[in-house]
Structures are given as C-alpha cells and as structure tokens.
C-alpha cells in the first residue's frame, strides 16, 4: 500500500510540472511535437530512476555535508550515459533535443527527488518514486506535445490528421508553448475550483 502511494505521488498530487512548476525548460522547449516529447520523457525517466536507485543504495555511506556534490556526480554519470546512447542509436532525436539532453543534469526534478526522497528512503520505494515522477513528467510533457503538434501541424506522432495548411503554425513555434501551458494551468485551476 505504501509502495503504491510512493508511485502514485508524482502522477497527479505532486505532478512536477503542472503542480510544483519545476523542470519547465525541457517541457516548453521540446514539446513542439509528440515524438520529441516522448524521447525527452524516456531520457528523464532513465536518469531519474537510475539516480534515485544509486542514491538510495549509497545513502548510508554519504556524509551529510557533501551530499549535494555527490548527488550531482551520480546524476551527471547517468546523463552522460544517456547522452552517448542517444547519440549512437537515435541521432535524429539527439539532434532535435540538442542541448537539452546534457541539461537534464540541472533539471530540478532529479536533484529534488534525490534530496527529498531517495536520500531518506529504501531502494524499492525510491525506484517507485522515480518511476511515478517520471510518469507524471511524461504525462505533462506528452499532453503539451500532442496539443501543440495537433494544433500547429495537424498531426499526432507524425500521423497527419488534417491539412497542415489550415493549422496554426504559431503553436509549434516558441510562443505556442507558453500559450498551451498557460491555458492548461488555467484549466486545472478551474477544475480544482469545481471539485472544491
């Protein structure tokens, strides 16, 4: 039951992007189509689950004063692995995501979970927490990606749904990201109001 709670937390109640407003840069930057959004979510999930696992494993050996630099080294190891795997096997995706792959290292979600959760909890809970947070991140990123691609290019995951000439190109350009997340948040506020 407790394990389920750890997994569930990141999906809705503490959704990193839409509730806590952290890790915004990649969400807005790579959500111009659904495939990029999926690729970024997988990369973040790999780093987040990996770093949570390792931090939970070594948490008893890590001295309190220098824990942050140690976390950063663990995280950057995973980011480097991810960077090189992507470069080797998915060069197109790597080119599309660009500098945002190495920038996962400063994504607040990852350091935040290492510090707030993995450092204080056993391995299994930490891995589940990482998985839940990654899923929450992927849901937010994916929904923004799908909305922008649909409105801006008339397609979803590259499948054309209607003629691209009548689509609002602005949605796949940078301003579209701000517009989408602004309306999404206003919608969530309204929903929350109704529930209360």
């Amino acid at each position, binding site marked *: 039951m407790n394990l389920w709670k750890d997994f569930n937390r990141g999906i809705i109640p503490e959704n990193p992007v839409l509730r806590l*407003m*952290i890790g*915004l*840069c990649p969400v*807005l*930057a790579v959500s111009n189509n659904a495939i990029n959004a999926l690729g970024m979510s997988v990369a973040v999930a790999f780093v987040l689950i990996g770093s949570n696992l390792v931090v939970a494993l070594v948490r008893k050996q890590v001295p309190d004063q220098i824990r942050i*630099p140690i976390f*950063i*080294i663990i995280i*950057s*190891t995973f*980011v*480097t692995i991810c*960077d*090189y795997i992507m470069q080797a096997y998915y060069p197109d995706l790597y080119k599309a995501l*660009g*500098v945002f792959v*190495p*920038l996962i*290292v*400063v*994504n*607040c979600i990852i*350091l935040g979970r290492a510090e707030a959760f993995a450092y204080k909890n056993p391995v299994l809970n930490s891995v589940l927490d990482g998985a839940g947070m990654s899923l929450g991140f992927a849901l937010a990123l994916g929904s923004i990606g799908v909305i922008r691609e649909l409105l801006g290019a008339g397609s979803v995951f590259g499948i054309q749904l209607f003629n691209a000439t009548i689509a609002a190109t*602005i949605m796949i*350009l*940078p*301003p*579209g*990201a*701000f*517009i989408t*997340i*602004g*309306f999404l*948040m*206003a*919608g969530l*506020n*309204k929903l929350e*109001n109704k529930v209360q």
Partner: protein
Amino acid sequence: MELFGIFFAAFLINNILLIRFIALCSFFGVSTKIDTSIGMSLAVIFVMTISSAVSWLIYHWLLTPCHLEFLRTATFILVIAGLVQLEELYLKKTIPNLYRAMGIYLPLITTNCAILAVAFLAIDYRYGFIQSMVYSLGVSSGYSLAIILFANIRERMELAPIPKWFQGYPIAFLTAALMSLAFLGFTGMFGL
C-alpha cells in the same frame, strides 16, 4: 562584423529565455519585482561571462588533449558550482556594493541552467575563445533585457482585473507568449 552577428543572434534572435526556453525557472521566479530582476540580471552577466571563459579553457586545454570529452557534463557543473562560491567570496571582499546588489542571487545561479547551457552551446557551435566570450555576453544581455521587461509588465499586471482562473502563473505564461511573439519578429534580420 562576424562578432557583431554572434552577439546580435544571441541577444535578440535566439533570445535564451523567450525563444530557446532555457532558465525559465528564474524567469518566472524572480520577475515579480523590477529590483529583483535587475539584481538577477547583474549576477547572470557577471557569472556567465567568467564561467564560460573558464569552461572553454578547461574543455579545450584540458579535456580535449586528454581525450576526456565525455566528462564535460560532470566537469562543467562542478566547476561552475565552485566558481560561483569563489566569485561570491571575492565580491564580498572587494566590491561590497555590487555584492549587496546581487546578494542572494549569486548562490541561486548554480542551478540556473543558462550558465551551463552557454558553456555547452559555445562548444557545440565550435566557437573560438573571443567568439564564445562575445556569445556569452550576448546571451546574458538578452537574458537581462527579457527578464527586466517582463518584470515591468508583471508589476503593472498586479493592478489589472484578471479573470480568476488566470491569476498568477497562467497569465504570466500568456504574457510571456506575447513577448516571445514579439521577439520572433527579429528572425531573419541581417540574414541570421
């Protein structure tokens, strides 16, 4: 002319906040007052210029000759974190006025992804030392321009009648969208 192109592209056309979406946490976090946004801009200009110089030197003179390019992510983030601490100590001793203006923003900068991004981008674009200095100056000036303008708008918005669900972050995002649209107008200038 080439240097001017690099500066202008980084300053307006590829504005780091509004077009490239890097360092957005600070863009929304410290832009509620004009004073705080000015303090943050000063700190970013100062730290970004120094850290991009140091990271360029480390990458080209240390990591490349030793074939350790894969260590760049880990190296850069540790170097930048250490550098910010040093700069804080140095400023406190030598220029206390400037230190007071930047104050609490200096430690926050360690987590500001713009600093790290500029270090990576200058390497990805294969810039030389002078070029990468001009580039980081352009990026940090663009950062300052965007965040100070945004803070001005947000201060005025406090008095505006905003629909209930849009109060707070949603309206801030929509404002940023309009600013981003305006910056998009610079695309294609000087054939960049």
